[in-house]
């Protein structure tokens, strides 16, 4: 289509906001189907979630966008750009950038569950971006659906007119056309200007082995064509556009992208460090005056040590992390050494899910055998001598007498729970050093509870506890509020009188003894008996605060061995030896891999 013939008022850019399991991907599938974007033949469940991991966990990590043609009831053909967003709190910033590329958002709420904390957080993000919200109540085919109840709570919580709510069943396809019509009627067309200098918002990117980093963009103003010299306004790097196009959802190269369009750009970009989500692309020659608002650099919230089990695999691990980094700009890492674990990396993540996904990808896609240490947050440490240090690894915490004060990141946590669990939730929050802020009834049975609490306590098995004490019904979201001084101490774990750096942790002084003892006891379970007795101690400086012992091994013998057994018994011994090899020896003690995660998993089996 020639640029002059193009009708910007027939474009609709929208995304779908939903909680995990509320049916976002299924709804997206139905939309693709009813716009004939995908042949039934090619249809696999949940078309837009491209990573196996995503489909398995039922979450969308990576954003995919797709251009759809839809002929509405007014007989006019519209172009719909569906920009999919991740649903998890770890990726709030990415969600906000995706939403910034849209003019409307379809809010999907499960008719049997009601609205959840993360969804609410994302709706607020959408409202911040002035998006038109199209409320959709899904799963109306289920017997336990409470459409009126959900309408009521949407009205109370978000001021949404119950009349505007569209009941659908993404599973059966009922109501999908109503959703599409509402997108056409209620979502405004993009208001950019083709004549203005280019401003293209990068809302995602991925790495292609042949073409390098491919940014996904929404053109706010202007036009971009093949051969254009472009500049990233924040990273200031310059490239030439080799190719560009859209997804239908198959990749389709086209001639140009103009104001209101959503698509991909290929420009031989080798380094993902130069492609920041939220950055603005403009022309080198006639640049825009200023970048689009809302850009910020991503800072990790959670840090963890990642080490190869076998020291020989260090280089291969490094290589794998570099490969993941190519498609994950938010990942930060640097080399680190541990006395106990040898050479490895300190890796910073946006949150716990991000960390888990990273570890799983290393193990699954890159076949790495890992030891990961318990996650930590970034502490600000003021020393007596006036120096200020950022510490993201408890092992690196300076001696107590040198420390004047420690500040730790705090968050505002929003928890939405059925009211029968309010007591449980508050108990956990109190236990996690939370300070009660507010409580609101969203409906007769659903309560929103707000606490201020240390991020480190959330990192430390908060989510599992919350889930298990609310039968999985509570949902949870948080935002960073700042740093607060805390009475924190470093606890060392000593095995056979030797401190093991990778097991050290920081904890509030009041919890030091209790947590130290739990870790000692857990290690006692995990570490196999040796030929000598092993004392396990938790210590604050030189003061031992908890201790237990692993008794010496007294029996390790194959009771039976005759002619026919020898080969089998040899295999058993070889297996035993292999198990021993997989352990890390620290001093004279062999420590199994999982021991290094105990600090994290401690409370999950209380």
């Amino acid at each position, binding site marked *: 289509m020639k640029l002059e013939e193009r009708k910007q008022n027939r474009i609709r850019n929208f995304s779908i906001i939903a909680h995990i399991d509320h049916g976002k991907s299924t709804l997206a599938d139905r939309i693709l189907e009813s716009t004939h974007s995908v042949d039934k033949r090619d249809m696999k469940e949940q078309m837009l979630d491209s990573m196996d991991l995503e489909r398995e966990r039922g979450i969308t990590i990576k954003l995919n966008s797709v251009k759809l043609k839809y002929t509405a009831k007014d007989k006019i053909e519209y172009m719909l750009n569906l920009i999919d967003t991740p649903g998890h709190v770890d990726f709030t910033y990415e969600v906000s950038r995706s939403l910034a590329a849209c003019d409307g958002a379809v809010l999907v709420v499960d008719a049997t569950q009601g609205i959840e904390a993360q969804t609410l957080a994302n709706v607020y993000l959408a409202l911040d971006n002035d998006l038109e919200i199209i409320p959709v109540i899904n799963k109306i085919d289920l017997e336990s659906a409470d459409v009126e109840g959900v309408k009521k709570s949407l009205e109370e919580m978000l001021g949404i007119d119950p009349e505007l709510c569209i009941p659908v069943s993404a599973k059966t396809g009922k109501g999908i056309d109503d959703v599409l019509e509402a997108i056409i009627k209620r979502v405004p067309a993009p208001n950019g200007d083709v004549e203005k200098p280019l401003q293209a918002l990068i809302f995602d990117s991925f790495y292609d082995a042949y073409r390098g980093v491919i940014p996904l963009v929404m053109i706010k103003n202007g036009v971009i064509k093949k051969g254009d010299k472009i500049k990233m306004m924040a990273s200031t790097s310059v490239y030439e556009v080799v190719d560009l196009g859209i997804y239908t959802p198959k990749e389709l190269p086209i001639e140009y992208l103009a104001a209101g369009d959503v698509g991909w750009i290929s420009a031989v970009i080798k380094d993902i460090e130069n492609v920041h989500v939220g950055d603005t692309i403009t022309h080198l020659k006639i640049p825009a005056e200023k970048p689009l608002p809302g850009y910020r650099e991503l800072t990790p919230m959670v840090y963890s040590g990642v080490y190869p089990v076998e020291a020989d695999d260090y280089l291969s691990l490094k290589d794998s992390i570099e490969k993941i980094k190519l498609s994950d700009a938010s990942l930060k890492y640097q080399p680190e050494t541990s006395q106990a674990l040898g050479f490895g990396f300190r890796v910073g993540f946006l949150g716990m899910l991000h960390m888990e996904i990273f570890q799983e990808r290393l193990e699954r896609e890159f076949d790495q055998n890992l030891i990961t240490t318990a996650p930590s947050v970034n502490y600000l440490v003021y020393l007596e001598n006036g120096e200020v240090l950022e510490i993201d690894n408890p092992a690196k915490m300076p001696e107590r007498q040198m420390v004047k004060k420690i500040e730790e990141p705090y968050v505002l946590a929003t928890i939405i729970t059925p009211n029968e669990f309010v007591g449980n939730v508050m108990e956990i929050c109190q236990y996690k050093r939370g300070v009660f802020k507010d409580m609101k009834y969203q409906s007769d049975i659903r309560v929103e509870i707000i606490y201020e609490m240390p991020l480190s306590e959330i990192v430390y098995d908060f989510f599992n506890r919350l889930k298990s004490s609310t039968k999985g019904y509570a949902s949870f979201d948080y935002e960073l509020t700042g740093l607060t001084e805390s009475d924190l101490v470093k606890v060392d774990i000593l095995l056979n009188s030797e401190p093991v750096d990778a097991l050290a942790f920081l904890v509030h002084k009041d919890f030091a003894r209790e947590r130290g003892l739990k870790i000692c006891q857990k290690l006692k379970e995990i570490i196999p008996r040796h030929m000598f007795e092993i004392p396990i101690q938790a210590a604050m400086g030189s003061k031992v605060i908890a201790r237990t012992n692993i008794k010496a091994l007294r029996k390790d013998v194959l009771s039976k061995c005759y*002619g026919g057994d020898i*080969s089998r018994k040899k295999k058993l011994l*070889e297996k035993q030896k292999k198990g021993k090899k997989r352990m890390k020896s620290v001093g004279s003690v062999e420590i199994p891999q999982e021991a290094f995660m105990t600090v994290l998993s401690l409370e999950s089996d209380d």
Partner: protein
Amino acid sequence: MIKGLYIHIPFCDQICTYCDFCKMVTSDHTKKEYMKALVKELEYYSDLVSHIETIYIGGGTPSSLDDDLIEAFLDELETIVDMNSIKEFTIETNPNDITEKFLTMLKTHHITRVSMGVQSLNENLLNFLGRTHKPETVFHAIELLKKSKLNFNLDFLYAIPGQTKENLLKDLNFISEFKPHHISYYSLILEDKTVLNYLINKHKVEDFDDDKARDFGEIIDEKLISFGYEKYEISNYSLPEYKSKHNLLYWNLDEYLGIGLYASSQFNHIRMINPKKISKYLKEIEDKSLTMHQLEDFNPQLETLLVGLRKTEGIELDAYKEKFNQDVFTIYPELKKHLENKLLKIEEGRLKFTKEGMYLSNQVFVDII
């Protein structure tokens, strides 16, 4: 030179909960077919076994076969092996199967030694283990054995989940009363793919505490020695002159031939093993293709230690050096560490486990394997 012959009978009347040996409950027809196949395999090796010194019929439960079937096989065996050169001929039995007639038949066919699986004299523990016999059956069987003048071994188990010290002392007391010539006293091992392992993994049964097992082991050592037994291997005790000659072949890494299902052999510097599946075994015997044995790794330098050190007398250092042209500590320098930590010792030119080492032998083996 092949010194011993092992014959495997993989049949049982009932499978014990802890057993991971090659065994099955099957039809009489299969048993007959199998015994015929055994004869064929034996004939194939007849030149190698004509001058052996020991025979051992193990299982499974060889005594679970009908007497006629055993007798027919023993008849064939005598035509191939020169029974005059046999110094020890053992058969494994279940107490239920011991009758006067059975024992007479064994004696007629040159069997010199009966090994009987007693395991325990506590009825609850026997039930738990899936054994079909009762304590009274054992008493009766021993009476018959004594009368027959056959030399006999009793198998016992300790560290059975639920076993008390009282149970153990009762079993030991029984031994002092009946004085078998030989005792194999095994610590119950949890093997994969056994009912017992399943029960313990599902927490339906509590595993036996290792420390307590060690304590029980020491009680057994002490008591049996006080009764006049010599401990000559990790789990074996005998009255003077009644060590198991056949089993010593294994621990001395001497050559032996094994026939039957999943039986292994070791001679001419190879170890090999028969098929595990009975249909495959029968077919290969039928097709005369059993020469296509599965070979197993054989490492005499290592295995001399793995089996030799099981004996309380250990291994002779000079003999080792002569055989492999190298000192054992040169080949396995890790052994020195265990001399220092006193799991091993050298006495009169022999390398052997200390008392402590006997219970922690895997710690040494894992270092050299």
